């Protein structure tokens, strides 16, 4: 089993890195991009000792308590069999 955790800045939290990337890709000629927000992606290899439901709960807790800072970030967990 594999868990994927996506961590993104909450809407409204300034993302100067995303802005800088946006600026750069526009300079390179990419058009039609309204906004870029940079986030983090974590891939966790799970050892199958947990059921899918327990794994989801455990990874969600990890995402909440460690991988994200709930003051500034949101997270999303996906479990893949």
């Amino acid at each position, binding site marked *: 089993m594999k868990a994927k955790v996506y961590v993104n800045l909450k809407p409204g*939290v300034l*993302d100067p*890195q995303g802005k*800088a990337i946006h600026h750069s890709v526009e300079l390179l000629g990419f058009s039609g991009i309204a906004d870029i927000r940079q986030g983090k992606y974590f891939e966790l290899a799970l050892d199958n000792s947990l059921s899918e439901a327990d794994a989801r709960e455990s990874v969600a807790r990890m995402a909440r308590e460690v991988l994200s*800072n709930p*003051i500034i970030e949101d997270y999303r967990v996906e479990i893949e069999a």
Partner: protein
Amino acid sequence: MKFGVIVFPGSNCDHDAYHVISKHVGQPVDFIWHRDTDLSTYDAVIIPGGFSYGDYLRAGALARFSPVMASVKKFAQSGRFVLGICNGFQILCEAGLLPGALIRNRDLHFICEHVFVRVATNDTPFTNELTPGAVLRLPIAHADGNYICDDVTLAELQRDDRIIFNYCDKDGKVTESANPNGSRANIAGICNSSRNVLGLMPHPERACEDLLGSSDGRDVFRSLAATLAAVA
């Protein structure tokens, strides 16, 4: 009175803090390795600047899980004094000992320069030897010093007089152009509701000798020493 300076892998202002306490405050001070958990002999601990754990994940995020931090939480709850400087401020926010968070500077750059900060209040153990409105010249050295919090938290900080330092110009005016990193309300330092935990991004410990460009930081340590002397 006895001081402790906590050392994480990647701390780099620990010796500066130690030097200031031993030389300028003239009090006993120990380094405390992050795996130690016994803070019972200390009256105040300093969480110094640096890049604990390489700022991996988020600045201060991994240091929060070091064994010593559970002790620091209890230490703070017991009413003893905790001063977090720069990375120390980031760690205190990540640990939930101070509200809000410190994110990437508005203009992305790592900023290393002297700035002016205005002392908003002297009603703290860390500023009681200062005058409200006093302007200190202190260095900053950070990439993630942009203080952010929600409206409710900001209102609480303002209502309870918990914003201790604001970035300002040389005349003490708190203006947007004097805000180096985009911090909300020009916040450079805040304290907790019990006022015994202070976090700030500027480095008072690196501004205690004229040779280093400023000695304005001494007043912060002088205040804390005066507090401890009064308590003793």
